[in-house]
């Protein structure tokens, strides 16, 4: 069983969506006549325009004679396709079999989803709820074949719902055939020439056409019509190319009116991020880098990356971080288009949440780190890692990526044991909490070590030698107490014959 969603005003609505919300609200109060043109002919017109007498396939000149205040937009097919893909992604949560048809129709195989949604009524109501949020106009219909659902979508939903028997959860075929045969022939999705031919023999309704024997239909009207009818009545299989969600996210918005301020970019940014979040949710993936590109009217491009360390999908955080990054740039020319690309995606690490909120615990989120990185630069935050190196400065290293520690700890209990074993070995040897970035030279006058005061060695030596095969390191480490009570970690370099201060034993 198929559900069809017809989007009659898609070309117009796609273009109007990139207009900022404030303007849109303004227009919605008193709907202006608007239309989309393709090849200098009216392709799609809104309700207000139709009331003025605008019709499809009119020339621009005649459209202006009917209504001089009409707004005309050039059709943008790629953006339409993007919008259709977005909607298909949205419908993907209702059924795995979604097909995008020509003429802005989406077909959904729903027979397997009925059980999940506890019946057709529930499914339709939740589908309507989802689609209403998208601010598009749509029409729904059900049918036993893709073609029947498609043709029935010209009628109101109630018309096709009559064929549905709620108790047994199936289609009543006699009722369906009755309703199909009442439809006028010009609704068939075939060439206008064939429709004219059918009308010329006096058949006005589908029922009148199907009364004719099949062979004579083929003889009179050709292969196209006969195949259409066979597919409509499920006598011929009608395979569809199902929609497969793409691997990567790439969306581009072009604006009808150029955007001059940063503030004006917020609306398209929010829209793209909303689409991204939906995409990520469907794919159960997580992204770490948003790549934004702004194209201005002087053919310049501003590109920047927004890094995200958070493991959850959160549109508000994405918007905030993008805004913070955007503040670094000045717009020299009005912006014509914006695009968002997300390539590297990772499996979403779903985290277990507490059933009852535990107020005492801290969250394991990296939002604040992202914020700091966005403002102070990506290299402003780092973490430490221990390495099994003998040379002290190599045993600790900085890593820029912030780990989301909550699940790592549970994952590798063996490593913890290992580390603890290491501790017990290392524990005997004193290690300073602070390490100087570069060891500082200490003066030695045969009696005293001098470094901003006097140092006195208070521990026995620890010799560290390594890398004799490469660049040899040989040092004797000591703890030395300063006049002011601080304990420093100093070493005598056996090769350079020089004392150095390397750390603070805090």
């Amino acid at each position: 069983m198929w559900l069809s969603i017809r989007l009659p005003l898609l070309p117009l609505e796609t273009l109007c969506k990139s207009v900022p919300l404030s303007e849109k609200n303004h227009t919605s109060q008193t709907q202006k006549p608007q239309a989309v043109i393709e090849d200098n002919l009216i392709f799609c017109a809104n309700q207000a325009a139709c009331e003025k007498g605008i019709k499809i396939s009119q020339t621009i000149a005649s459209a202006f004679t009917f209504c001089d205040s009409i707004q005309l937009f050039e059709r943008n097919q790629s953006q339409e396709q993007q919008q259709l893909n977005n909607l298909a992604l949205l419908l993907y949560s209702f059924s795995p079999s979604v097909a995008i048809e020509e003429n802005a129709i989406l077909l959904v195989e729903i027979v397997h989803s009925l059980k999940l949604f506890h019946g057709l009524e529930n499914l339709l109501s939740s589908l309507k709820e989802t689609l209403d949020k998208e601010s598009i106009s749509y029409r729904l219909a059900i049918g036993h074949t893709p073609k029947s659902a498609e043709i029935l979508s010209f009628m109101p939903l109630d018309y096709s719902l009559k064929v549905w028997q709620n108790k047994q959860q199936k289609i009543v075929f006699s009722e369906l055939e009755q309703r199909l045969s009442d439809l006028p022939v010009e609704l068939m999705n075939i060439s206008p020439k064939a429709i004219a031919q059918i009308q010329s023999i006096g058949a006005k309704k589908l029922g009148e056409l199907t009364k004719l024997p099949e062979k004579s239909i083929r003889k009179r009207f050709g292969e196209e019509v006969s195949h259409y009818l066979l597919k409509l009545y499920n006598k011929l299989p009608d395979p569809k190319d199902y929609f497969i969600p793409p691997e990567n996210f790439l969306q581009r918005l072009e604006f009808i009116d150029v955007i001059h301020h940063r503030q004006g970019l917020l609306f398209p940014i929010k829209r793209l991020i909303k689409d991204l979040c939906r995409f990520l949710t469907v794919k159960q993936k997580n992204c770490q880098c948003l790549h934004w590109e702004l194209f201005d009217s002087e053919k310049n491009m501003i590109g920047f990356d927004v890094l995200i360390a958070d493991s959850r999908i959160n549109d508000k955080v994405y918007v905030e971080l993008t805004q913070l990054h955007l503040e670094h740039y000045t717009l020299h020319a009005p912006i014509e288009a914006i695009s968002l690309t997300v390539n590297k995606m990772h499996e979403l690490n779903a985290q277990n949440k507490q059933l009852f909120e535990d107020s005492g615990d801290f969250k394991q989120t990296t939002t604040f780190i992202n914020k700091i990185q966005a403002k102070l630069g990506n290299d402003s935050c780092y973490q430490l890692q221990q390495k099994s190196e003998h040379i002290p400065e190599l045993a600790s290293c900085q890593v820029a990526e912030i780990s989301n520690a909550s699940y790592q700890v549970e994952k590798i209990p063996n490593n913890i044991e290992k580390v603890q074993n290491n501790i017990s070995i290392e524990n005997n040897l004193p290690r300073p909490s602070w390490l100087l970035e570069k060891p500082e030279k200490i003066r030695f006058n045969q009696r005293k070590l001098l470094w901003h005061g006097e140092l006195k060695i208070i521990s026995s030596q620890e010799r560290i030698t390594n890398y004799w095969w490469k660049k040899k390191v040989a040092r004797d480490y000591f703890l030395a107490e300063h006049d002011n009570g601080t304990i420093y970690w100093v070493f005598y370099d056996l090769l350079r014959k020089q004392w150095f201060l390397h750390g603070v034993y805090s």
Partner: protein
Amino acid sequence: MSSPTISQLLQNDGIWQASQKNNLRLAMSTGYAELDRQLHYSGWPQGAISELLLSHNGIGEIRLLSPLLARLNQKPGYITWVNPPYLPYAPALVNQRLKLDKQVIVKTSTVQETIWAAQQAMASTASSAVLVWLPKKVLGNEIRKLSLAAKAGKCWGILLRHQSLSQQSSPATLRVILQVRQQKHLLSIIKQPGGWSGQQISLELFPERINWNPFDVKYWPVFSPEKPQVRTPQMEISPTAKQPQWLFELQQKSMCFSEAIIDKSQRTIRSVDRPKQPYH
């Protein structure tokens, strides 16, 4: 009509009444029983700013705080180090039972950046403790900002400042001076919540000190070209200056020795045997 004013006063968080010893305020033990006894909340206060005034960076502040940090590390939440004076050294932190993947270090270049980053970390509710190193300046308003952020994020905010600022007033809840006197750490509590301040205690922050044996100056390794080198007995087998002939030959001959480690304490030579393979 004085009663409304008194009730208003009592709502103020800063007012302390001797009649009700408020145990509702959360605090976490410092890990030092002696210090816990002196603090009315028996620990570092949560959701507030504690200020450590140091005579020098590295005087023992990490050791003083590490029991708190180690305990906070067992629960979710990062520990943020804002603008530390030196690089925190990973092996030492591991020795003090801190988890490295929960430490976040933030480098800043100006005071405003330090305050802003610390504020973000404190208010985030994702950072259980925030350590902030501040320059030798009076920063009353900034510290007030931080204390509001710490209250919002319910975290342990710890400021590390110079001792000379102890005479200046500060909005921090707890203020402690850390000094060293005759190899002992001396803590003076100059302000604390929940009661009188002015306590002084001495703590042994480095109990391992007893294992260290001071070296006399004549055994320190030196280099003086005119005089013969004065060396400790251990220095005899220095691999640099005088390598024993047989070890040298061994290294020359054997290709399977990838590493020869000279263990100074046992004065033996351990060789790390690897499966025989060409040394590249």
